[in-house]
């Protein structure tokens, strides 16, 4: 997908989101008292203005890509481009990272912060195929413990312990 198609899709998505805000999200999720003395003071005013600006910017983005000169992808976007053979693996790695993040949030109350972050560290190292597995394993054990020691004993944070291991 080239930069122009990408930006056209982005513009369409932005317009759709702006319309969704105006027609559904703001009326349903923003409440305003009935005794507001001026429209500009209403809690609805600011979100409404933002939604309209979003729609205008979406239209402008599409218009500039359709009628303006061609655009070139930035260095960041260009450097993220992969060959067709590598792309499925990259997508799988990203999906795995998403699963690890969800799993981490779920695991913290059960396994505790130290154990769940240590496992998350090891899993992330595995999906990027670290060339230094021994170093990664040592850091996966030590880093959560050091951070636990700092936050629990120096900063006085109540770090979740989990149901299985209780650290001093």
């Amino acid at each position, binding site marked *: 997908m080239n930069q122009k198609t990408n930006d056209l899709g982005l513009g369409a998505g932005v317009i759709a989101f702006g319309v969704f805000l105006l027609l559904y999200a703001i009326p349903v999720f923003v409440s305003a008292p009935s005794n507001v003395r001026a429209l500009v003071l209403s809690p609805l005013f600011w979100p409404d203005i933002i939604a309209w600006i979003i729609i205008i910017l979406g239209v402008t983005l599409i218009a500039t890509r359709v009628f303006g*000169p061609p655009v070139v992808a930035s260095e960041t976007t260009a450097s993220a481009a992969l060959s067709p053979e590598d792309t499925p693996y*990259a997508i799988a790695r990203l999906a795995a990272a998403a699963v690890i993040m969800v799993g981490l949030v779920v695991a913290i109350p059960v396994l505790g912060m130290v154990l769940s972050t240590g496992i998350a560290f090891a899993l992330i190292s595995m999906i*990027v*195929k670290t060339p230094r597995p021994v170093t990664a394993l040592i850091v996966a054990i030590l880093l959560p413990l050091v951070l636990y020691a700092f936050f629990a004993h120096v900063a006085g*944070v109540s770090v979740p312990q989990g149901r299985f291991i209780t650290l001093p």
Partner: protein
Amino acid sequence: MSFFDNLTSAFHLVANLESFLALAGGILIGVIAGAIPGMSATMAVALTLPFTFAMQPITGILLLLGVYKGGIFGGSIPAILIKTPGTPASSATILDGYPMAENGQAGKALGMALYASCTADLISNLSLILFAGWLASFALSFGPPEFFTLILFSLTIIAGVSGDSLIKGLLAAVFGLLLATVGLDLVYGTNRFNFNNANLMGGLNFIAVLIGLFAIPEILAYVWRPKSDTEQVRALGEQHVTFAEYRRCFRTIIRGSFIGVFLGSIPGIGAAPAAFLSYSEARRRSPNKKNFGKGEIEGVAASEAGNNGVAGATLIPLLALGVPGDVITAIIIGAFMVHGLQPGPMMFVANANIIYALFLGLIISSVLLFFIGGFAIKMFRYIADVPTSVLMPGVLILCVYGVYAVNNNVFDIIVMFAMGWLGYFMLRNDIPAAPFLIAFILGPLLEDNFRQAMLMSNGSAHILFRSWITWFFWGATMLTIAALIKTGLSARSDAAEALHATSRE
């Protein structure tokens, strides 16, 4: 309190081992983080923020300022030794720094980078001390309409210059404003996008949003395309910078420092443009202009003076007006807020001792940077050995602990991950994250001042044009938009011509 009372109180705040260690430790962390490709000064400041919660306000803020200053200098080390800027601000340093390293003069280039950085840092700090108080006393006369127009101007310029596209910058800023509306309404206390969830009543946690936006996308980008752990590091060589060379470059360093101070005091411009402008001015005026790009020491001095000249000056709008000039100062404003301080003109009245303590600390930081920077140059080989495949999962763990520590709440970790994926989407679509974060921070202030102005005028918009200050900011906003559109159009025409030329070949 009188000036001398404040100064004495400030001296007591800074002249202790804790503050000194925080400043030195911050600079060391910043230099190391800046020197590691893949880390950035912004990420380092964001990750250090949670560690400041347990500290005294001044100690915590000095630690963050140390990380900021160290990070900006640290970026020059890999720029010179491995042709990879540690921070975007060091991009201009590559132009002459790396050719010098190739010629066996890496030690000389790094020495000049350090001297230029420390000189520029000192000039920038002195400018801050000179101008911030003056600007704050002027800003004391600002009312809600003046603050509204000032914030609008700041957001416009930040959105315009942060990325390649004005529209995408504005989009980022508007989405930041939208996210800032989550929580209870500022005037009526009614629900806004909080879905009756108690975690959202007070709005989204600022630290979760900023760490999510600036650290998690880097991890995801690494997961998408893991890079090699090994880089070709150049040897320092036997040659060191001499006093005669420093004296020859002195005028360039001073000019670059003032370019940095000027651009740094304008919200949104940042260190990278200052470095490039300083470099191009040095090349234009130098008798050795033909040598620029081939290993000219004056080029290294110019770019490093430009980017370090920004460091103190970005604190001018932060301290005097309460408006962060870039992402790092936006994070530092978070540290102020965590400790119950609100930067702005009133802080010069209510907490003047803290302001003076910061000024004293900043002056000390320039001296510490000289020694710690010199040490880091010699240690770079070990710093560069930190493998990215171990660093990135480590950053993830730091983020989780840091964000949890804010409120002892797992919900903040969820917000951080959500923001991380949003930030990654923005990264892949060339949407800059800086306007998003700054708009998120300034959003409540913008809305609050707007509604206060409307309350004062019974809903009449005339109040937004009541003084020459509001007219000035309206005019500056319009001029900024016009200039950005003109620059954007000509840049795109140039890019299109280059594209056609390439396709013809």
